[in-house]
């Protein structure tokens, strides 16, 4: 079998698909724009809900990628054309040919600066959940002027379910990440009060609800239902948060020494460029659309072009890994059928 699959994107979706295709005996070229594989997951410290190290998951897929994989790092795509087979041309003029293309370009994090009222990149003590993960990884403690924070606020749904920024969808992973990070902060700072400001807590997956209860019962995390309306900075750099507590129906003003914004997922602009080269459809949410979201969730209207992972919309790691394996089966089936027809 000489068919080859070009996978665009070396995050978990691409790595999972590449691993599965290798196991099925299909040759894979994996293109990653950064200088290492792992996508966003390599920036996370511990994964919900088990709080295992993210590096363990990445290590598993790195080991199982196989030695025969044709890996291109720092690969930026200039063009994609089709003349029988697909030709992907990179910016360094390398041409790669393949019989199928898998788009696994994932997502990017919502730019918290766009929620101007929260003061990200303006107030020193406002950070994103991604930056907090980076601190967890490096062991750096999020202090205020060298002191242990007295209170920490965590804001849910930043850039998600928000008509004002044009994102009506739920990013799925932020609720449970907020619960996980609240617990982790409480472990680092046992005396610090922690407040999560949420609209709904969407604890949809296995162990999530239990983790939410654990956060309240064992860790004493305060969950306030209401959206933050604005933040301002005090003279000592602490942050004044104004929020409505919709359960008591009262406005609340609270000072926190650190404010963590749970940033959601948004489509990558590069994905749009690639989709335009191939003529792929996009949903109202600007994520790519498969042929049928129930029965052909990895296929596209363009024969030989497949989708996997969060390029189709927000998702969590377990789902992304499963989707990578699912698309591998779809691609193998497509190649087998194509060979028979040829």
């Amino acid at each position, binding site marked *: 079998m000489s068919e080859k699959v070009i996978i665009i994107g070396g995050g978990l979706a691409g790595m999972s698909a590449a691993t599965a295709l290798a196991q099925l005996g299909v040759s894979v070229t994996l293109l990653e724009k950064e200088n290492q594989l792992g996508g966003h997951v390599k920036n996370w410290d511990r994964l919900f809900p088990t709080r295992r190290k993210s590096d363990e998951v990445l290590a598993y897929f790195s080991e199982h990628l196989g030695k025969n994989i044709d890996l291109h790092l720092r690969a930026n795509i200039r063009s994609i054309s089709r003349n029988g087979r697909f030709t992907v041309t990179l910016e360094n003029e390398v041409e790669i040919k393949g019989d199928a293309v898998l788009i696994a370009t994932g997502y990017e994090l919502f730019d918290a600066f766009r929620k*101007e009222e929260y003061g990200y990149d*303006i107030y*020193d003590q406002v950070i994103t959940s991604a930056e907090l993960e980076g601190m967890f990884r490096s062991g750096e403690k999020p202090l205020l002027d060298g002191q242990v924070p007295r209170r920490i606020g965590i804001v849910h749904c930043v850039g998600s379910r928000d008509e004002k920024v044009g994102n009506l969808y739920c990013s799925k992973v932020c609720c449970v990440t907020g619960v996980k990070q609240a617990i982790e902060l409480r472990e680092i700072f046992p005396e610090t009060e922690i407040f999560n400001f949420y609209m709904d807590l969407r604890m949809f997956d296995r162990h999530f609800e239990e983790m939410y209860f654990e956060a309240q019962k064992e860790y004493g995390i305060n969950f306030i239902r209401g959206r933050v309306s604005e933040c*301002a900075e005090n003279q000592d750099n602490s942050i004044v948060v104004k929020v409505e507590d919709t359960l008591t129906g009262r406005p609340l003003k609270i000072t926190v020494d650190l404010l963590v914004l749970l940033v959601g997922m948004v489509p990558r602009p590069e994905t749009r460029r690639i989709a335009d080269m191939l003529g792929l459809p996009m949903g109202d949410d600007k994520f790519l659309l498969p042929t049928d979201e129930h029965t052909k969730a990895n296929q596209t209207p363009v024969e030989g072009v497949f989708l996997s992972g969060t390029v189709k919309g927000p998702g969590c790691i377990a789902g992304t890994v499963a989707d990578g394996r699912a698309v591998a089966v779809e691609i193998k089936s497509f190649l087998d059928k194509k060979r028979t027809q040829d």
Partner: protein
Amino acid sequence: MKEEGKRRLWMEYQKEVADDRFFYVRSCVRQNFFPASEKVFLQIMRSELGKDVFEKEAHTTCSGIGYHSDVVPFDTAMTIIARQFALMTESGYENFVTSCITSFGLYSEVIETWHHFPEVLARVRENLKTATGREFKIPANVSHASDVIYKFRQQIGEKGKHRLVNRYTGNPLKVVEHIGCHYSKMFPAKGIGGAEYPHVLIGMIEDWGGEVVDYPERRHCCGFGFRQYLVQANRGYSISCSRKKFDSMQPYKPDFILTNCPGCPMFLDRWQYAISEMEGITYGENGQGIPVLTYEELAGLVLGYDPWDLGFQVHQVPVEPLLDKIGVPYNPEKKFLGSTGQYIGKPDAPSVLKFYSNV
């Protein structure tokens, strides 16, 4: 505070402001509250900057206060505004400048409505034609007068005689800026600097030598809030809003407050007196309160106009301490003389707030 972040945001919210040939519409209330501000705007535009600014006596209220108090329906407001545009069109102008922030907000809201609902625009045109026989063009440019002063702030600064610097310490004066709610909270893109960190007054303060104070309750309402004050039973809420702001800004020791709305300077100025009478509390230094200025008054001050020609004698919080800090000359004997030199009377001294330096 990361100033770079703010600057990045300001760059995203720059708007087109016309360069010349303005049709100017006054506010219903400002000539009572701060009587020289509009006159000073016209003087600066015409005499200092050489601009063509035209106004017409047939101009009426925009009905904004009635509209926001739910006593004037939107259709009526739109027709009144269509008539103002007809006056502009008949006068041969297309750049519309408003003195009032609420007018600016309502003009913006009406034009935005017409943009999205052309059938409403057609109806308003028909209503105006039927009622008055008039026709109109939508202005090419709608700006608030503070946008215009912002645009020409460097020229004003270059011509200026005074800088916003404390002459005793050599340090920049610390200034609280307060933006009217209807300036950009409804349409962030229509305000210079957007809604959360508007730059329109900051640009003037910094260009003229001052330093801006960013305090926690910066975005909070001045206390007017229309129904907070217009409904008498709500006035406790009005004064508590103002007090919340004063309490929040006081630790930063601001030298004065700068505003761009009709209501804000009125309430931030007058309520300081009311709070002092009710609770014995004064803000600012030496029991004298924190002076509150309009941007026109400040521009006039920078340009070296006589403080009494700027209407400072009708401020409740005395402005003299600020004039002393900057080094603006003034004759205390002339404070209560009218434009023809006649004595206009002077108010009794408040019991707590120091209105007269010798009391």
